[in-house]
Protein backbone atom coordinates (compact mmCIF):
# COMPACT_ATOMS: atom_id res chain seq x y z
CA UNK A 1 0.00 0.00 0.00
CA UNK A 2 1.54 3.33 -1.10
CA UNK A 3 2.28 6.20 1.25
CA UNK A 4 0.32 9.32 0.59
CA UNK A 5 -0.11 12.87 1.74
CA UNK A 6 -3.64 14.08 2.48
CA UNK A 7 -4.75 17.64 1.80
CA UNK A 8 -8.32 17.02 3.01
CA UNK A 9 -8.08 19.27 6.07
CA UNK A 10 -7.27 22.30 3.93
CA UNK A 11 -10.26 21.76 1.62
CA UNK A 12 -12.59 20.86 4.49
CA UNK A 13 -11.78 24.12 6.27
CA UNK A 14 -12.29 26.04 3.02
CA UNK A 15 -15.78 24.51 2.86
CA UNK A 16 -16.34 25.63 6.47
CA UNK A 17 -17.04 22.09 7.64
CA UNK A 18 -16.12 20.26 10.80
CA UNK A 19 -14.81 16.70 10.72
CA UNK A 20 -18.16 15.59 12.17
CA UNK A 21 -20.14 17.28 9.37
CA UNK A 22 -17.94 15.83 6.63
CA UNK A 23 -18.14 12.38 8.23
CA UNK A 24 -21.94 12.55 8.34
CA UNK A 25 -22.10 13.57 4.67
CA UNK A 26 -20.00 10.63 3.49
CA UNK A 27 -21.39 8.11 5.99
CA UNK A 28 -18.34 7.41 8.13
CA UNK A 29 -17.23 8.28 11.66
CA UNK A 30 -15.39 11.42 12.70
CA UNK A 31 -12.43 9.19 13.67
CA UNK A 32 -12.20 7.95 10.07
CA UNK A 33 -11.97 11.52 8.75
CA UNK A 34 -9.40 12.35 11.43
CA UNK A 35 -7.21 9.36 10.41
CA UNK A 36 -7.63 10.24 6.74
CA UNK A 37 -6.44 13.79 7.36
CA UNK A 38 -3.38 12.43 9.14
CA UNK A 39 -2.86 9.98 6.24
CA UNK A 40 -3.09 7.11 8.72
CA UNK A 41 -5.86 5.37 6.78
CA UNK A 42 -6.07 4.44 3.10
CA UNK A 43 -9.69 5.04 2.00
CA UNK A 44 -11.66 2.89 -0.41
CA UNK A 45 -12.24 4.24 -3.92
CA UNK A 46 -15.90 4.95 -3.12
CA UNK A 47 -15.06 6.91 0.02
CA UNK A 48 -12.35 8.88 -1.77
CA UNK A 49 -14.76 9.80 -4.57
CA UNK A 50 -17.54 10.69 -2.13
CA UNK A 51 -15.18 12.99 -0.25
CA UNK A 52 -13.96 14.62 -3.45
CA UNK A 53 -17.58 15.31 -4.46
CA UNK A 54 -18.41 16.85 -1.09
CA UNK A 55 -15.38 19.16 -1.04
CA UNK A 56 -15.60 19.70 -4.83
CA UNK A 57 -11.93 18.92 -5.40
CA UNK A 58 -10.50 16.15 -7.65
CA UNK A 59 -9.38 13.00 -5.82
CA UNK A 60 -5.79 13.34 -6.96
CA UNK A 61 -5.54 16.79 -5.38
CA UNK A 62 -6.80 15.51 -2.03
CA UNK A 63 -4.74 12.30 -1.83
CA UNK A 64 -1.25 12.78 -3.16
CA UNK A 65 0.71 9.56 -3.37
CA UNK A 66 4.43 9.77 -2.67
CA UNK A 67 7.01 7.78 -4.68
CA UNK A 68 4.66 7.51 -7.66
CA UNK A 69 6.86 5.06 -9.66
CA UNK A 70 4.34 4.62 -12.44
CA UNK A 71 5.06 8.13 -13.71
CA UNK A 72 8.88 7.87 -13.58
Amino acid at each position, binding site marked *: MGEFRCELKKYRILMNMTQEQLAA*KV*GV*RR*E*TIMRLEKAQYNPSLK*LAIDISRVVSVPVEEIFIFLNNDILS
Partner: protein
Amino acid sequence: MKREMNKSNYTKKFNPKLGWLGFCGLLGFTGLWSYSRYNMIFPFCFFAFFGFFAFFFEGKMQNVLKDEMYIENETKSQLKAYKVGFIISGIMVFICTQSYLYMNNNDILLIILVIAISVDMALVIILNKFFLYKFEKIE
Protein backbone atom coordinates in the same frame (compact mmCIF):
# COMPACT_ATOMS: atom_id res chain seq x y z
CA MET B 1 -25.10 10.97 -0.58
CA LYS B 2 -25.79 10.60 3.12
CA ARG B 3 -25.79 6.89 3.71
CA GLU B 4 -28.56 5.24 5.68
CA MET B 5 -27.42 4.67 9.20
CA ASN B 6 -29.51 1.72 10.28
CA LYS B 7 -29.26 0.31 13.74
CA SER B 8 -27.65 -2.77 12.16
CA ASN B 9 -24.71 -0.59 11.08
CA TYR B 10 -23.82 0.02 14.71
CA THR B 11 -22.00 -2.30 17.12
CA LYS B 12 -24.22 -3.88 19.71
CA LYS B 13 -24.94 -2.43 23.11
CA PHE B 14 -24.48 -4.56 26.18
CA ASN B 15 -23.26 -4.31 29.74
CA PRO B 16 -19.43 -4.53 29.86
CA LYS B 17 -19.77 -6.02 33.35
CA LEU B 18 -20.46 -9.29 31.51
CA GLY B 19 -16.66 -9.43 31.36
CA TRP B 20 -16.61 -10.56 34.98
CA LEU B 21 -18.04 -13.87 33.71
CA GLY B 22 -14.46 -14.51 32.64
CA PHE B 23 -13.79 -15.71 36.15
CA CYS B 24 -15.98 -18.71 35.27
CA GLY B 25 -12.84 -19.93 33.56
CA LEU B 26 -11.59 -20.88 37.00
CA LEU B 27 -14.22 -23.66 36.87
CA GLY B 28 -11.69 -25.42 34.68
CA PHE B 29 -9.81 -26.37 37.84
CA THR B 30 -12.80 -28.53 38.84
CA GLY B 31 -11.44 -30.88 36.21
CA LEU B 32 -8.72 -31.89 38.67
CA TRP B 33 -11.38 -33.06 41.11
CA SER B 34 -13.62 -34.67 38.47
CA TYR B 35 -10.69 -36.54 36.95
CA SER B 36 -9.40 -37.86 40.27
CA ARG B 37 -12.93 -38.88 41.38
CA TYR B 38 -14.77 -39.92 38.22
CA ASN B 39 -12.11 -40.01 35.47
CA MET B 40 -13.98 -37.14 33.76
CA ILE B 41 -11.90 -34.76 31.63
CA PHE B 42 -14.75 -32.60 30.31
CA PRO B 43 -14.63 -29.88 33.05
CA PHE B 44 -11.17 -28.83 31.81
CA CYS B 45 -13.03 -27.26 28.83
CA PHE B 46 -14.36 -24.59 31.18
CA PHE B 47 -11.01 -22.80 30.87
CA ALA B 48 -12.48 -21.46 27.60
CA PHE B 49 -14.77 -19.23 29.70
CA PHE B 50 -11.77 -16.95 30.28
CA GLY B 51 -12.76 -15.64 26.83
CA PHE B 52 -15.55 -13.65 28.52
CA PHE B 53 -12.91 -11.14 29.64
CA ALA B 54 -13.07 -9.91 26.02
CA PHE B 55 -16.34 -8.16 26.92
CA PHE B 56 -14.33 -5.55 28.81
CA PHE B 57 -12.69 -4.46 25.55
CA GLU B 58 -15.81 -4.91 23.45
CA GLY B 59 -17.75 -2.82 25.96
CA LYS B 60 -15.52 0.17 25.20
CA MET B 61 -16.65 0.04 21.57
CA GLN B 62 -20.41 -0.02 22.03
CA ASN B 63 -22.77 1.72 19.63
CA VAL B 64 -19.98 2.59 17.18
CA LEU B 65 -20.81 3.05 13.50
CA LYS B 66 -19.41 0.13 11.52
CA ASP B 67 -17.90 2.16 8.72
CA GLU B 68 -15.22 0.88 6.33
CA MET B 69 -12.39 1.71 8.72
CA TYR B 70 -14.03 -0.24 11.54
CA ILE B 71 -14.60 -3.26 9.28
CA GLU B 72 -10.98 -3.12 8.14
CA ASN B 73 -9.74 -2.91 11.74
CA GLU B 74 -12.05 -5.79 12.69
CA THR B 75 -10.65 -7.97 9.91
CA LYS B 76 -7.05 -7.06 10.81
CA SER B 77 -7.61 -7.86 14.49
CA GLN B 78 -9.30 -11.20 13.70
CA LEU B 79 -6.43 -12.18 11.43
CA LYS B 80 -3.82 -11.27 14.03
CA ALA B 81 -5.68 -13.12 16.82
CA TYR B 82 -6.24 -16.26 14.73
CA LYS B 83 -2.57 -16.24 13.72
CA VAL B 84 -1.50 -16.25 17.38
CA GLY B 85 -4.08 -18.96 18.15
CA PHE B 86 -2.97 -21.22 15.32
CA ILE B 87 0.69 -20.89 16.25
CA ILE B 88 0.00 -21.75 19.89
CA SER B 89 -2.27 -24.68 19.04
CA GLY B 90 0.28 -25.96 16.51
CA ILE B 91 3.05 -25.82 19.09
CA MET B 92 0.89 -27.59 21.70
CA VAL B 93 -0.11 -30.35 19.27
CA PHE B 94 3.54 -30.81 18.33
CA ILE B 95 4.64 -30.98 21.97
CA CYS B 96 1.89 -33.47 22.82
CA THR B 97 2.61 -35.73 19.86
CA GLN B 98 6.31 -35.74 20.72
CA SER B 99 5.56 -36.39 24.39
CA TYR B 100 3.38 -39.33 23.35
CA LEU B 101 6.55 -41.14 22.32
CA TYR B 102 8.01 -40.88 25.83
CA MET B 103 4.93 -41.02 28.07
CA ASN B 104 2.75 -44.04 28.71
CA ASN B 105 -0.11 -42.05 30.18
CA ASN B 106 -2.48 -40.98 27.39
CA ASP B 107 -4.89 -39.43 29.90
CA ILE B 108 -2.36 -36.80 31.00
CA LEU B 109 -1.62 -35.94 27.37
CA LEU B 110 -5.32 -35.60 26.65
CA ILE B 111 -5.81 -33.34 29.67
CA ILE B 112 -2.89 -31.14 28.60
CA LEU B 113 -4.31 -30.91 25.08
CA VAL B 114 -7.83 -30.07 26.30
CA ILE B 115 -6.50 -27.37 28.64
CA ALA B 116 -4.25 -25.96 25.94
CA ILE B 117 -7.01 -25.79 23.33
CA SER B 118 -9.51 -24.28 25.80
CA VAL B 119 -7.06 -21.62 26.96
CA ASP B 120 -6.05 -21.00 23.35
CA MET B 121 -9.69 -20.42 22.37
CA ALA B 122 -10.12 -17.98 25.25
CA LEU B 123 -6.91 -16.20 24.26
CA VAL B 124 -8.04 -15.84 20.63
CA ILE B 125 -11.37 -14.34 21.73
CA ILE B 126 -9.67 -11.88 24.08
CA LEU B 127 -6.91 -10.94 21.61
CA ASN B 128 -9.49 -10.36 18.86
CA LYS B 129 -11.24 -7.67 20.88
CA PHE B 130 -8.02 -6.32 22.38
CA PHE B 131 -6.40 -5.78 18.98
CA LEU B 132 -9.61 -4.20 17.65
CA TYR B 133 -9.63 -1.80 20.60
CA LYS B 134 -5.94 -1.04 20.04
CA PHE B 135 -6.40 -0.36 16.29
CA GLU B 136 -9.43 1.83 16.96
CA LYS B 137 -7.81 3.89 19.67
CA ILE B 138 -4.43 4.64 18.06
CA GLU B 139 -4.01 8.42 17.96
